[in-house]
């Protein structure tokens, strides 16, 4: 992970540095082994990010990619927080 720019919470600060190897390494830090379903979710999240669309649990529900229970099972604890980190995009935030 040398040369990969990340913020204090471990999120990439430059999406152009993202690749599958980076994602696999971040996933390992989060104790997750990536399966095909994980990659499908990552692809969906990156698409949303590219279109500047906000991520939400409701969006996941309506995405047709995964249901919310499965989303939790794939990224236990804080699924949006963890999946965005692996996808190389910013985590959902509030104003402050």
């Amino acid at each position, binding site marked *: 992970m040398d040369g990969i720019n990340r913020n204090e919470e471990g999120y990439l600060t430059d999406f152009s540095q993202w690749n599958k190897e980076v994602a696999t390494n971040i996933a390992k830090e989060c104790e997750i082994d990536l399966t095909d379903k994980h990659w499908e979710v990552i692809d969906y999240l990156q698409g949303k990010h590219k279109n500047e669309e*906000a991520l939400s649990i409701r*969006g996941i529900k309506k995405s047709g990619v995964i249901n*919310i229970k499965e989303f939790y099972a794939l990224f236990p*604890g804080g699924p*949006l927080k963890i999946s965005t980190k692996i996808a190389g995009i910013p*985590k959902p935030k509030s*104003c402050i």
Partner: protein
Amino acid sequence: MKKLVILGAGTSGTMMANHMIKKLPKEEWEITIVDQYKTHYYQPGFLFLPFDLYKTKHVKKKGEKFIPKGVNYILDKIDKVLPKKNKVKLEHQTIDYDILIVATGTKIAPEETEGMKASEWHKSIFDFYTYEGAKALRNKLRDWKGGKMVVHITEMPIKCPVAPLEFAFLADSFFINKGIRDKVELVFVTPLGGAFTKPKATKALHYLLEDKGIKEVVDFNIEEVDSKKKKIISYDGKEVKYDLLVTVPTNLGDEMIERSGLGDDMNFVPTNKATLQSKKFENIFVIGDASNLPASKAGSVAHFEAEILEENLLRYIAGKKLKEKFDGHANCFIETGHGKALLIDFNYTHEPVEGSFPFPGLGPLKLLKETRMNHMGKLAFRWIYWNMLIKGTHIPFVSATMSEKGKHFDKKN
């Protein structure tokens, strides 16, 4: 005659009517604004209503008073927009437009969460994002004897994302003043990674939660409310019990947007974040909470957008290229209780930082710091809102785009 139609006479719509009546020649343009409700609410005041700090008269006025002369004001329900025909179907008539401004805002949808809007709604489960909810909560708090109060955000995005935190801070102050703070357990439940989510704000402000004894439950995505057992349950089976649940339900754009086929998953209109033009139709523009912009859904954002939208509408009419000028600027006072408040100033790319506002180095307001002066600013804002902001008067020294002067950014910013 050409026609400008504004849908929604809330903060954004009213501001745009006031802006455009001054700019468009009367002999060429007819301006119409449509809303189904007669009342204009000062929505930031809903935060104070539950604690008896504001009264009804402070937050509720007749909308008509703020619609400028010369603007056609229609009180009717909007059925849908027919964007390919440049028409809006209202319940009682159909109107044409050359340019449409969508300013229909966002509203709470408690029915989206199982068990939320059931028999306990406004009895032990409250919202404070509506006048009715805030007033019902005020009546409840007047003789509540204490217990576990859970302040809860259902999902993002929500209008005024800091309001739930402010509510928790004001609740702490309210119960101290009432002499029952020791009988109240205050818990803040959020679907995000923390009550504060940005690094600088977390560092500067997390002490507020600790000092006030407010517990945080994070990464909590609610699946249902069990109102009989008085607990909220998350998708991954976590449970938080409550005696009094103060929730911010799912926020959705107006159903009219869905009926018109103009919205995203949450009925917000996909909009160019710098020009405020809708992504699908070039003669439809969107302002305020109705858009899907990655900016905060807040009155100050709508105010800054209004100045830029006015300019872009004039450019659009003149056949000029739109200015990609909106930077997501927001400027918000945050009540922290005990007569103090914070002020934050930020945009799409810059997180809130410390510094002074509006005059670099001088203030008098301090950014990201609790002061009494900031609280005075928040109170003064009610007057500014009714007398300047919705009337489209420029607020001196505060620019539509964010100034970087007087702010303590890191060098890499």
